[in-house]
């Protein structure tokens, strides 16, 4: 956890990767801790396997724009490396980039993975996580989003317990096994980023 009056986060990934689930967890935890929240999402056509992003704004003060201005984002959290690069110019100088290294290849001209990671590394302090391996270790390859949430935990303005609480709220209705895998995925992501 980090302390600040505000945090602007770009969540990135591909439709179906569970970006909105991460947003829900962070949002709900932030609201409980007294933050104002605005969260711009993508619905409709783009959700079908296209690039999706969510602008998540947390602040103790009033939030005006639903969109994060370019140069204001404190953090880009991406479940996919190519998608991490798409929004780089939103990041403020000194802002942080945390991304999965697992490519989601559903386009013909997908770039070389090493070149991609090379670009990610150009951002000082960037964190690259093998979300696929960790999610599998946690019991389900679907939990890559939760792995990435864990990887970002120490850099968020909301506490880890709050995040765990809303992971429970989100996944408990889907059964004990899915919940356990996601809690484990969160832990594995968290440790990998330490």
């Amino acid at each position, binding site marked *: 956890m980090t302390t600040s009056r505000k945090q602007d986060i770009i969540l990135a990934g*591909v*439709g179906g990767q569970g970006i909105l689930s991460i947003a829900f967890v962070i*949002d*709900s935890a932030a*609201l409980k801790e007294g933050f*104002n*929240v*605005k*969260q*711009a*999402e*993508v*619905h*409709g*056509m*783009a*959700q*079908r*396997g*296209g*690039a999706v992003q969510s602008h998540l704004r947390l602040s103790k003060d009033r*939030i*005006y*724009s*639903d*969109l*994060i*201005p*370019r*140069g*204001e984002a404190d953090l880009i959290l991406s479940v996919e490396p*190519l*998608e991490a*690069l*798409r929004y*780089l*110019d*939103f*990041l*403020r*100088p000194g*802002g942080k980039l945390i991304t999965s290294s697992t490519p989601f290849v*559903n*386009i*013909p*001209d*997908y*770039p070389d993975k090493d*070149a991609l990671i090379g*670009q990610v590394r*150009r*951002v000082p302090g960037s964190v690259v996580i093998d979300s696929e391996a960790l999610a599998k270790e946690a019991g389900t390859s679907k939990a890559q989003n939760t792995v990435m949430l864990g990887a970002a935990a120490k850099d968020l303005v909301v506490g880890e317990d709050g995040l765990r609480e809303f992971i429970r709220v989100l996944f408990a209705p889907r059964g004990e096994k899915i919940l356990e895998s996601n809690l484990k995925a969160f832990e594995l992501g968290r440790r990998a980023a330490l």
Partner: protein
Amino acid sequence: MTKEILLGDEAVALGAVHAGLTAGYSYPGTPASEIMEYLVRAARRAKTFVAAWSVNEKTAFEEALGVSFAGRRALVSMKHVGLNVAADPFMSAALTGVGGGFVVVVADDPGMHSSQNEQDSRFYAQFAQIPCYEPADHQEAYDMTREAFDLSERINIPVMIRLVTRLSHSRAGVETGEARPQNGLRYGDRQCWTLLPMNARAQFKRLLELQPELIKISEGSRFNNLELNPADRSLGVIASGIAHNYVLENFRDGANKPSILKVATYPVPEELIKRLVAHVDKVLVAEEGYPLIERSLKGFYGIPGKTLIGKLSGHIPLAGELSPESVRAALGMKPLERQAPSEFKPAGRPPQLCIGCPHADTFKALNKALEGQAKSNVFSDIGCYTLGYFPPYSAINTCVCMGASVGMAKGAAEAGVFPAVAVIGDSTFGHSGITALLSAAAYNTNMVVIVLDNCTVAMTGGQPTFTSGDRLLKIVEGVGVPKEHIRVITPLPKFHEQNIRVMKEEIAHPGLSVIVAVRECLEEARKKNKRE
């Protein structure tokens, strides 16, 4: 008061429920779908009001109008292009007036995230001469919806709420109030509601005479806000809706704030605009959509002695969505420092059909059936299957508006195109395809209509369809398509060859054929599984 996190769409829906809604109607369309989604869920729990998907926006509008005729409060919601479909009753409802409060919620899609154009619905409100609210945030979306019902009832005309994608699909906390009870039943006056020329003339006169009062109401609205900076007269900003957020975002520290007029209600609050303009040398107009306010200020001659900038002057792009950056540039401020973009431009990742989608199998078969024929003759429509435009299918050549495929195929066939093929989803067919097919059947036009029956409105999240399965087949037969040329196929890889054969046979038939490709949408099947 309780605080809830809601989508902008949901804030409107909840506002309507709390305003004493008796019934709401809609047809799915991004970014408006979540309004009715919310109402449907709320109605299922409360069981005190009606929330129903309709066959199309015109029908939805008329259903809502009937509720209003009965003295009770009604809402109709749709995406911007849906209002084109409902434009006929919309324009005339301004004349009939209303019984119960009647609120028309229209969600525009500047930037065309999921639309075929970016028309600005405020112009429709202006055209019909009815009031319009433009919320800037979620709280306003809730508050304005409540107020819109009261206003509609008080002045006796429909009221529009204009949303945009960024508000519809953004979440934030909303403080909600006590719910108001529903109105009782009260019948409309037949003289007002029967728009025979003699009645319509009187009703139109009433509407015209109401206009000065509407401007006054707008000028007095608590949602507009004029803040003059006495120390600096160089710049004044007129900003409406979420454009106002983008302006304030750039003055978050409060320093050097110019004079700002926030416009949230229409007709445009003239007096407030005059006061701002009088105070400053230069006026910037920032509005999401087309330059409505700016154009009315500019007129033919501009504002004598003042500089006016905005979209028409090129300071803000005319096309696409506003952003904090584009407004910042128009404010003459330096861009924020930021991280350098990556050294190569990330390849685009367009949306695509789900792996295993039934449409994919239909397109594969269709491409094969058309091999050797002229290629540019597949008229398509609006739905997931529009993604058949992209490789590897590259199967369609048009997408214009709901239902256009069938009419266009008929016209093209009559112009000499062969084979003329229309591809349309089951719900789109119900929305606007039936009438066109009736026309094609009446002339037995030489064309093939392929109805993709995936048993749902997939693109917008799986709303119910009314033209699927058996009913769809009966409709097709009922409009007069010969039974032997109504063919049903199952778009699965194992039937690939068979499906190609059916398509080829019907293409060869010198008259109208309809092929119905039936297989459930995968997403829908998955959701059903989860529920069970």
